[in-house]
């Protein structure tokens, strides 16, 4: 009886310890990612933004993306009228791993585009924080975030998917797919007298209209060259 009790206690302690080790692993991994991202004090990136929202028909925009520590991010169109998703500030990965205190939870392994990733959940310690939960899909080999899901208190949820290339050393992606929630666009009554071209009127699936996507393909980064604060105003 004594032997059984001893074995059970040993097993329990082992399980607890294993859990701690895994949690520590996840913590260490997040720290590794954070260290990589913290090499960047500021950057200016040039790229193209493709917006895919049901009601919005716009051309591919040439954009410039500016970042400055700790959490300033601005996307500007090079020329012309542009629609920039408001939640695009979440593209800033620094925000997720550096901002505030959080508890790291290991959620096992998964795959993103065929690459094995560790799933890590970040729970903010502050009950009133705007971000309720962040789930990071981290490529352990390269210590970069491949995918991130953020649930916010007020502004719905966002999803980011990153592809890395020559700027991986700084944890900066070459391509970002940013998914966000949108409202249906309704035109106030009496604004237009539209030309009815006789096309069959399709009844769209309303649920389908709720997600928008912005795909930013970055051609070059200019890192740590200094950026004036006025850019972000």
């Amino acid at each position, binding site marked *: 009886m004594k032997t059984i009790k001893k074995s059970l206690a040993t097993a329990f302690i082992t399980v607890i310890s294993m859990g701690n080790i895994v949690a520590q692993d996840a913590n260490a991994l997040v720290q590794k990612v954070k260290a990589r991202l913290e090499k960047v004090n500021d950057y200016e990136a040039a790229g193209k933004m*493709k*917006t*895919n*929202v*049901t*009601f*919005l*028909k*716009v*051309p*591919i925009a040439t954009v410039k993306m500016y970042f400055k520590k700790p959490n300033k991010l601005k996307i500007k169109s090079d020329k*012309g*009228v*542009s*629609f*920039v*998703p*408001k*939640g695009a500030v979440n593209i800033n990965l620094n925000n997720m791993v550096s901002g505030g205190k959080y508890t790291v939870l290991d959620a096992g392994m998964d795959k993103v585009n065929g690459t094995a990733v560790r799933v890590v959940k970040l729970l903010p310690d502050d009950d009133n924080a705007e971000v309720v939960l962040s789930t990071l899909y981290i490529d352990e080999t390269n210590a970069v975030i491949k995918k991130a899901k953020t649930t916010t208190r007020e502004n719905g949820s966002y999803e980011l998917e990153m592809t890395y290339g020559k700027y991986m050393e700084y944890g900066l992606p070459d391509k970002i797919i940013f998914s*966000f*929630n*949108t*409202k*249906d*666009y*309704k*035109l*106030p009554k009496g*604004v*237009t*007298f*539209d*030309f*009815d*071209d*006789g*096309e*069959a*009127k*399709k*009844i*769209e699936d309303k649920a389908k*209209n709720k997600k*928008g996507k912005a795909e930013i393909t970055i051609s070059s980064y200019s890192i740590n060259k200094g950026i004036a604060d006025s850019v972000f105003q």
Partner: protein
Amino acid sequence: MLTLLQIELYKISRRPRTYIAFVAIAAIVFIFQFAFKVDGQSYMEFILQDVNDTFEMDKMQAINGYFMCYIILNTLLIQVPILVALIAADSISGEANMGTLRLLISKPVSRTQLILVKFLASTIFVLFLLIWMAVTALLLSMIIFGVDDMLIVRTKGEEAQILLITKDDVLWRYMAAFAYATVALTVIAALSMFLSIFAENSIGPIIATVCIVLVCTIISNINVPIIEKNVKPFLFTSYLVGWKGFFYIGTTDDGQTIKGTIENWAAIRKSLFILLAHIVILVSASVIAFKRKDILS
């Protein structure tokens, strides 16, 4: 024929009512331009109220010359048929009223020639009216508000859409739209002239034209399936706003606009054909009616 046309144009130019149309257009355009210059932001906030939560955009940048012209034309091209009727409805009945019609047909000119010349003169008036609109609504707006990418808001079927056309892809659309509008308003001119054959003064045909345009426009905008299917396709008013089709830019499957494209060229071509058919029918009917008319005044 050319001399006859010159005489007709001279007569139109001598009538004070001809200039009412030009003054009315200028007044409406200036009021729009002033209002948007002072408080265009509020209008943009209003039409983009559902987008404000999700997207950031410079609304003042969107209020540019191209956008302004579209907004003005959107309003004006509904009223302009009345201005066209003022002149075209006077073409035959005005002569009858002044007692010059009998004198006119006593000249060595066939009645067919006379009707064709009157119609041509009305068409030239329409053309001048649209050139005036292009100068005031487009050119002047471009000077006042500058030039940038053009924003179009529209309702397509059940859903509302925002289209963005790059600034280097806009001007040819306006040229095409004005050309289309010329054809559309020429239908009104042909209708007015046809009605004017049966009247002794121009008030009757002007009111009749306005009533026909009004009633048909209302029917064209009734969204009841039985009317949409059986009545709307046969009303010329359903095609008057077809000029907008040039601004409905083609898109890829995932919603990116394609420069230099039109979403539904076939629909515009069909509309143009129907409007041209209306012109041919109305002018032919005018020739037949005028030939058979017993002219006593």
